[in-house]
Every structure is written in C-alpha cells, then in structure tokens.
C-alpha cells in the first residue's frame, strides 16, 4: 500500500548542501563539543550531569510525543539530541534535574513537535524553553547565585550583571583575553569564546550554518555597543565586552542560525542578524533584563516570515 511515491511541492528558495538532517545534527553536536568540553572541565561532573540529562530527556520527550501522536519515530535524526545540547549549553552547571526535564519538555514538545516536528517550528525550541525557565525560576538561572559554591582563579561574577549595575568601569575590569578564554562564569557551553568561535567557523565552512546570519548578528552587536559606548562611555561598556559575554557567541553561531526559524535569502539574513544584534545590546543597556540574546532571538524569529518576503522576483512575473 505504501509503494505510491509521494512528492512534496514547496516554495522556493531552497538551500541544500547535500547533507542529511542526521549528519547536520551530528556536525553541530560535534562543533558544540568544542565549547561544552571546556565548560565541563571548568564546572566538573555536575556540568556533565546537566548535559547528559538534557540530551537524554530531550530524546525521551521526542520518543513519547512520536508515540502519542502516532508518527514515525524521529529521534534518529539527532535533532532532539541537538536541542537538548543547546539547552544544556545555556544552563548553569547547578541546574536541578527537574528544571532540565521541564526545559526539554518545553523545547521538544511545545517548541517543536506541537508545530509539526522538525522544520516547522517558528521559534528556536531551545531559546523558547530557556526563556520560559528563566521567567519561572529566575533564581536558578542567576549565575552569580547559582555558581556561588565554585571557586575559580578568576573573578566569579557574571560580567553582564557587573556592567548592568556598575556601568562600564566594572565591565573594564574583565580583560577581553580572559573572557575569550572562557575565564568567566555563565552557562556550561556559553562562556568559552574560543571554543564557540572555532565551532562556528567549522560549521560555516561545512555550510551547516549560514555565515551571513552569524556575522551580521555579531556586527549588529558591535555597532550597537559602539554607538551606546560613544554616547556615554561611563555607563555603557564597549563592543568587545558585549561580544564576549553572556550568550552572544552561542547566540550568533548556534541559536540564531537554527534552520526553520531563520531566513534563507541573502538580504533577509543580513537584516535578521543585524536586527538581532542591535536588539540584544538594547535589552542589555536600556532594558530590564540582564542578557538580551534570548529575547532578541525570539523576536527575530517572529520577524522571520516578514523578512522572507524580501525575495527576488520570479522570472516572467510582475514586469
């Protein structure tokens, strides 16, 4: 009965680099390890626990929803594991198990499967889940309080909290070199700048993420931070600080570039990234929240369908 060949027709434009979903997921997971391994080294076994818990529970939720909705089992494509990994990268190592499991539920079930599975989600599932968790249990994700029991050979305060409450001079007390090497506190996989950049470059070269989005996101942050810094150098930290703290790098390389929630054409991609970067810095500098990356990405995800309307004219149409 199932021998009938079904062809699906969908709208142009398309983007394909010849790889399958599972190899893409594998590659992104591999790239994220570059940032996660230093994180696990820094925070020890609790971090490994959070990462494995997150990946495992994400896969289980996907299995469960496959079973309930009587759809083919889709955990093999690795997307659920990838979502679990992304979520764990943003969490502090001390996140309790129930918060991780709730997070992966919201990411996989509410963020992705409800909308029809892979490729149909309007938001980046991991970002959506992380925002929900932060709104609910803010205290768990206050990095200063969460990582209180660790002792490091560097300053153990969350850099963005410092710049938010004490202005640019406090931000200046972090050396950019330290920030780049991951000598700052934060999420398990979001502090090690070198790892994230190397992972991002690898993915860009392999074509798994679009360089236009990542680079324009970073450019947006750089430009907006420069503008704020120029307006009031005492209050607002410089662009280097904003580029290397919080979720900036993980956002630029791993979160904003998620397939189904980002545009595919050249100009929309640039606008998408730029808008996200500028929004991030605006939330950080004049908003109520400490880090703006998550909110910025959710908002650009929302704008994405509009941006996709900017596309070349079809040949022979609308002369």
């Amino acid at each position, binding site marked *: 009965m199932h021998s009938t060949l079904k062809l699906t027709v969908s709208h142009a434009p398309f983007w394909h680099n010849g790889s399958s979903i599972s190899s893409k997921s594998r590659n992104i997971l591999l790239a994220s390890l570059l940032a996660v391994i230093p994180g696990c080294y820094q925070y020890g076994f609790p971090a490994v626990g959070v990462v494995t818990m997150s990946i495992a529970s994400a896969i289980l939720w996907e299995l469960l929803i496959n079973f309930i909705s009587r759809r083919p089992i889709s955990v093999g494509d690795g997307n659920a594991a990838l979502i679990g990994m992304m979520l764990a990268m943003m969490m502090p190592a001390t996140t309790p198990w*129930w*918060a991780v499991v*709730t997070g992966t539920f919201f990411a996989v079930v*509410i963020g992705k499967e*409800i909308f029809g599975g892979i490729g149909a989600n309007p938001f980046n599932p991991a970002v959506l889940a992380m925002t*929900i968790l932060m*709104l*609910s*249990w803010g205290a*768990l994700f206050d990095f200063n309080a969460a990582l209180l029991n660790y002792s490091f050979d560097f300053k153990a305060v969350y850099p963005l909290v410092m710049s938010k409450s004490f202005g640019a001079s406090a931000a200046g007390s972090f050396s950019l070199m330290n920030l780049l090497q991951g000598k700052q506190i934060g999420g398990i996989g979001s502090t090690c700048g070198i790892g994230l950049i190397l992972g991002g470059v690898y993915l860009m070269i392999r074509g798994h993420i679009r360089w236009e989005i990542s680079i324009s996101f970073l450019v947006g942050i750089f430009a907006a931070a420069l503008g704020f810094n120029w307006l009031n150098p005492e209050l607002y930290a410089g662009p280097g600080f904003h580029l290397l703290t919080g979720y900036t790098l993980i956002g630029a390389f791993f979160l904003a570039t998620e397939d189904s929630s980002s545009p595919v054409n050249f100009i929309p991609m640039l606008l998408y990234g730029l808008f996200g970067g500028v929004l991030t810095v605006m939330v950080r500098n004049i908003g109520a929240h400490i880090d703006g990356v998550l909110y910025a990405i959710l908002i650009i995800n929302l704008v994405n369908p509009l941006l996709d309307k900017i596309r070349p004219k079809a040949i022979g149409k609308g002369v």
Partner: protein
Amino acid sequence: MPKTLVQEFTKGLWQELPPFRLVLGLCPTLGVTTSMENGLGMGIATTFVLFGSNILISMLRSVIPSKVRIACFIIIIASFVTIVELLMQAYTYPLYLKLGVFIPLIVVNCILLGRAEAFACKNNVSSSMADGLGIGIGYTLALGSLGAIRELLGHGSVTVWGHLSYNLMSAFPSYHPFTFMVQAPGAFICLGLMLCLINAIGD
C-alpha cells in the same frame, strides 16, 4: 429529533463544552484563569447572565423582529451583565477587584450571543433554561479546572474562598512553583494542552 430537557442540560457539560468543544469565550478563559477562584467566579457570573438572557430571549422570541434581533439580544445581555457587575460590587467586592474589566466584557463573550442566536430564539423557555444552565455550568467547570491547574502549577497551592485549599508544596516539599503557568503565555499553552487532551478523549 427533539431532545429531552436533561439532554439539553448535559450537552453543555461535555458535547458542547464551551471553551474546549465550541472553542468560544476564549478571552476570559485565557485572561482570568490565573487562579481557580477567579475562574469559578467568572464562570458563575457568566452562568447567571446566560441563564437570564436565555430565558428572556426565549420568552420574547415571537415579539422580537428578526431585523433588529441582535440589537435586542445585546440590550438584554448588557442589562444582565450590568446587574451582575453591581451585585458583585455590592457583595463580593474582592472578587470584583480581581476580575476587573472582564466582568463588563461578558457582554461581548461569544457564548452569550451564540446561545441567544443559535438556541434561545428558536426554542421554548424550558429548554432554553436547561441549555443556558448546562452551557454555563460547563463553562464554569472548564474555567475552574483550567484555573486550578494553572494555580496549582504556578503557585504550588490552590485556595478557593479561603476554605477549600490544597497545598502541593506540603505534599512535595521540593516543588518549586512554575510561575510561567500563571503568566499570560502559560494560559495559552495550558489551554492548548487541555484542548489536546479533550480531543484525545473524544466523545
């Protein structure tokens, strides 16, 4: 096939359960169900209006000219809503403060006009009464249960008028209230999941 009065009453409890089966009246369903008490209060107020307007419209159905029927329905519904609003101010002021603007907004609740248009103006008084009561109680139960779930998850405890209460945190001391559930987006997700469940159960 004409239904019995009992059937007219019970259809509102499941087959035509307003927010889940008819998917009507979602504005208060999403807006006021931050606690079980608010949900029940809103439901009871709506039931009163629905019951009264159904009876009156059914009584006047031969008098009301069809061209201005909507205007007449709105006058009747709005009068009942204002009566409820005044009564709530007079006797349950704290609940009135919590529900706030949602009480006058009962006027534009689709359930009321829907029942008036689809049922009361075509049926006799007794079956309209049964219909209004059934739909109203179904609505109250739906709002109450949605409110209970959101309050339980979001605050960790459920309290109704200071008496009936259940504290999840005394049963599970390590439970951390999931505040997202009592915020606006939590309402949408919770309603969606309940719709999902009810569709899964089916008739």
